[in-house]
């Protein structure tokens, strides 16, 4: 399937930070999660993808267009929720929608008011008086109401309560459900949005660390818990992020299929057990070695 978004070797530098050679593609029906610790470059990357500023180097095409040739066409088809909503603080949600609507070719007012209602955002309260979570939800409402083909969401779960976070997950799944639209989210994995991502890109200190299908990644990365002395030294040395507990040790295995045969005896004897790693375990290990 033709990718909606293709980025190749994107670079951006500014004082104190540089994002180096990030490449990614996103096809219809896909949800890509960009994860990384604070300062990894997630916001810089998503701003580049949303055309908020140009890359210093690299190639970026959305819907087969570059921003220099088709900025209006691209932004008309992209719903971008920035980390810090920059709307006019003295406008109400309704006034903001009235301001934004004429710029879009597929604005759906009924959808907008439906979302305001669903999120219980007061239509006539000034934007500055909304709570942090409501501001994020308003941003999402605005991004969804012009019927975009691609959503770019920068930490959309920040400040949301559990119910709205669940609704956001459902909304994103429904959005890509038809197989014609796609989502790119940047987030901390602890936000719970890693659950909806099908592919992941880990960033650390402005550089890509790992890009993979999430299920494949989690099939390879496992926690191995074992009694002291249950594994031979060479086998134990292949585990990383070792932790010592009163009742044994735990280590992270980065290629479980390759290691499973070696572990078979210890597993059968009950001296070791395997547990699925979480995405956050992998991310923390890869970015901070812990």
């Amino acid at each position, binding site marked *: 399937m033709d990718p909606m978004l293709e980025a190749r070797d994107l670079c951006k530098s500014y004082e104190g930070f540089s994002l180096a050679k990030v490449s990614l593609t996103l096809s219809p029906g896909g949800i890509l999660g960009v994860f990384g610790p604070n300062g990894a470059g997630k916001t810089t990357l998503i701003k580049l993808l949303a055309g908020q*500023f140009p890359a210093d180097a690299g190639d970026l095409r959305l819907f087969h267009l570059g921003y220099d040739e088709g900025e*209006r066409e691209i932004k008309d088809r992209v719903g971008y929720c920035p980390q810090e909503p*920059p*709307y006019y603080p003295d406008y109400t949600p309704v006034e903001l929608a009235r301001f934004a609507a004429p*710029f879009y070719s597929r604005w759906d007012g009924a959808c907008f008011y439906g979302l305001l209602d669903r999120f219980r955002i007061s239509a006539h309260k000034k934007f500055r008086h909304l709570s942090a979570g409501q501001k994020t939800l308003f941003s999402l409402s605005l991004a969804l109401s012009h019927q975009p083909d691609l959503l770019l969401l920068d930490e959309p779960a920040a400040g949301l309560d559990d119910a709205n976070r669940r609704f956001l997950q459902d909304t994103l799944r429904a959005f890509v459900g038809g197989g014609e639209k796609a989502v790119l989210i940047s987030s901390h994995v602890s936000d719970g949005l890693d659950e909806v991502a099908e592919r992941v890109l880990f960033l650390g200190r402005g550089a890509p660390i790992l890009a993979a299908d999430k299920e494949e990644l989690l099939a390879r990365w496992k926690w191995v818990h074992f009694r002291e002395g249950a594994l031979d030294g060479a086998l134990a040395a292949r585990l990383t992020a070792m932790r010592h507990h009163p009742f044994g040790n735990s280590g992270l295995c980065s290629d479980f299929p390759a290691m499973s045969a070696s572990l078979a005896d210890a597993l059968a004897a009950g001296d070791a057990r395997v547990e699925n790693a979480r995405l956050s375990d992998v991310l923390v290990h890869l970015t901070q070695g812990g």
Partner: protein
Amino acid sequence: MLAIVRRSSFFYVTHFLTYVMMSLVETVAGRRGIAVFIVSMAFIWLPSSVLWSERNESYAFLRLLPVRDRDVVRAKLLLGLGAAAVYWLWLSLLALAAWGATPGFFARFSLITVVASSWPPLVALCYMGIWQRGARAMTFPLLTLMVVAFIGAVGFGRIILSPGRGDVLLGRISVPWPLLLLLPAAGLALFLLLARVAPRIKWKNDEHLQLP
């Protein structure tokens, strides 16, 4: 683009209406020279309108929308140009109402036109300064400009203020008619030149503001 003009015009309209009211009150009260003096202070009101509308602008929001940067710049500059034209027209009408179709009016109309020629480039420079350095950073320089302009407007007001002394002064500095065409044309040409450079200045500053 209309939405941007409509939003940005709020301060232009409120400033203009305030001073229209003041000048009408003065005219009705018979102090016709004072009225012209008040309106002649467009040097203050135009930069002030630019400054306050830009202090309330969110370019980060505009950058989310499917609108080209150069269209935003064009909308803002056209609004400023339109405002300058409205001030010129109002000032001229007020002078006509005060003096009728007399040599006194033509002398004042000439002076108003000469002075108003500088307003379009002045507005463009105000925008460019704000796009270059930010609205907050430009507040003090623009307020200083307004104070200087106020002092200038007092002098200008004195010239056109009194029917007797003003007529004598204006008679001495009468503006030749070719200049009445050339100066506004030069003002517009300078405005258009600045308008060509303005998008680049705004884009560079905008990028700086967008960086995380």
